[in-house]
């Protein structure tokens, strides 16, 4: 107890109280995060016309979003909202699966196959540098490769594998998923690598000495101990893809629907109550996913 108090006292480097030190930081999140979120919730219950928002309390926006969602239409389809959520969730799952496998493999290579720390740091930085460059540039850099006259099509036609250039390479769901994987695998690699570096190497030796095969060691030792990283990475990737409208817009040729895109379009038409209601629903869906995932870890202990 005394040592505890000792550290408490001596750790304080400035005599300014903790509350004051955290004030600028807290104010930013109060002003630009908590209040805006509150306003979204409030405005989602407002009315609007072509010119302005009308303060009131109504469920109109929510009702119009889910209009016709209770039954299938004559073509056997559900409503636009459910379809859009369906396709957004589907893309999220595909991207999540690919980034998880790829990110885990890369992290595993960095953590267990590279011998010197210097090399490890260098290769890790090599993987993370593109994160600090422009996302849009990284997206358009696929055009010379995947376009109608791009490198891939030139080679395919040149080798005689196809007669006509393949159209679905660019501005399609394929290019959207490819761009997501390109942009966000980093969000898987970093937390998983971080978790793997904390694994006590003697545990792996022990498993091997006791006759576990490589797969058994991977499955029963490494994966369970990397769980935190896997979950944090998954949260990042899923929430980013669920709310995205930039990548889907640019790589989908502005043709593919997503929840984020709906919100963006409604905002640009000044239909704020509708956009706000959509934002609330998106938030609930994302929160449900995160809640499911975070119950398993305490992020703070992992830093």
């Amino acid at each position, binding site marked *: 107890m005394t040592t505890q108090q000792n550290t408490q006292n001596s750790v304080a480097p400035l005599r300014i109280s*903790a509350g004051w*030190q955290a004030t600028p930081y807290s104010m930013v999140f109060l002003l*630009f995060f908590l209040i805006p979120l509150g306003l979204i919730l409030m405005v989602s219950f407002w009315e609007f016309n072509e010119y302005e928002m009308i303060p009131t309390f109504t469920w109109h926006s929510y009702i119009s979003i889910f209009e016709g969602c209770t039954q299938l239409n004559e073509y056997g389809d559900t409503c636009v909202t459910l379809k859009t959520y369906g396709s957004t969730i589907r893309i999220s799952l595909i991207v999540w699966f690919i980034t998880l496998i790829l990110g885990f493999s*890369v992290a595993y290579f960095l953590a267990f196959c590279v011998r010197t720390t210097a090399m490890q740091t260098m290769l890790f930085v090599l993987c993370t540098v593109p994160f600090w460059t422009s996302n849009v540039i990284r997206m358009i850099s696929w*055009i010379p490769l995947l376009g109608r006259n791009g490198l891939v099509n030139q080679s395919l036609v040149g080798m005689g594998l196809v007669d006509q250039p393949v159209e679905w390479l660019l501005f399609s769901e394929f290019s959207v998923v490819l761009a997501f994987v390109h942009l966000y695998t980093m969000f898987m690699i970093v937390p998983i690598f971080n978790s793997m570096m904390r694994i006590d190497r003697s545990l792996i030796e022990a498993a091997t000495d006791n006759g576990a095969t490589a797969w058994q060691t991977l499955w029963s030792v490494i994966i369970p101990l990397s769980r935190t990283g896997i979950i944090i990475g998954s949260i990042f990737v899923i929430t980013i893809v669920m709310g*995205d409208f930039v990548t889907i817009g640019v790589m989908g040729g502005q043709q593919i629907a997503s929840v984020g895109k709906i919100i963006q379009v409604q905002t640009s038409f000044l239909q704020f109550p509708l956009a706000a209601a959509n*934002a609330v629903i998106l938030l609930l869906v*994302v929160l449900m996913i995160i809640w499911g995932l975070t119950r398993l870890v305490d992020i703070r202990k992992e830093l």
Partner: protein
Amino acid sequence: MANQNFEPKRPAGYVGLLTVFVLFVIFLYGPMATIFILSFQGPDGGLTFPLQGVSLHWFYKLAEGLGVVDIGAALKRSLVLGLVVMSLTMVMSVLAGLAFRKKLRGGNALFYVTVASLIMPSIIVSLGIGLQFRLLDSALKWCFEYFAMTGMLDTFGTSLGLYSSALGAHLTWTLPFGLLIMFAVFNRFNPAYEEAAQDLGATHWQTFKHVVFPLIAPSVVGVGMFGFTLSWDEIARTSQAIGDVNTLPLELQGLTTTVTNPAIYALGSITTMVSFLVIGLTMLAVKLLSKRRT
């Protein structure tokens, strides 16, 4: 390999994993390399290979401007905003990081808000801030009318802007990274140095200035780099929370649908070079600061 027995065995599947890693790095950098090469496309060349000669033609075209978009002005705006975001991120993150080392009332709540901001879909944050400032506009206009301030009423446009709403939007994205880095730093920080300084009679401020800060300085530079580069490339959170002017990435996003010549690659090469320059300078600074420490 004579001393193979003394080396730890390569894990199973080494060759496969190495292949995956190499392919992944090519996948990461290959496309960037292609647009870098294509930005030197000859005047007659198009958006794809082959290169029709090598020239700086498209960089000159870019300098002349792309249609109605003033790239120079957008570049300057993004640069200055990035520097402001960088400075604020460094100061606020360090202060908050120090606060979290003491007993901080509401610290848990603040931490959860931080994580929430990090993983909140950006479009929601952007919409919220846009909405907030539009409501503020309405309130201000109502006030001007109420107090019959006609002068203000005529001149007032909107409170949305680069250094109000857009700055706030950027900070909600950069500060969480800043604080998490500070957590990682202070988790590994040995308080013995501080105790020693204070035992020798240093004041709190002296302890911070001469002991704590030099030790955390390389990480603070890292926080600054996060602040600048994340702001420099930010689109999603800025999109709905900016008024009439646009930042460089927003202009760039618009140009992807309108510009159909390699000038856009030239622009891409320039922005990427700025990012690389900042990363390089950061690494240099971190290295120098760490060296001074020992």
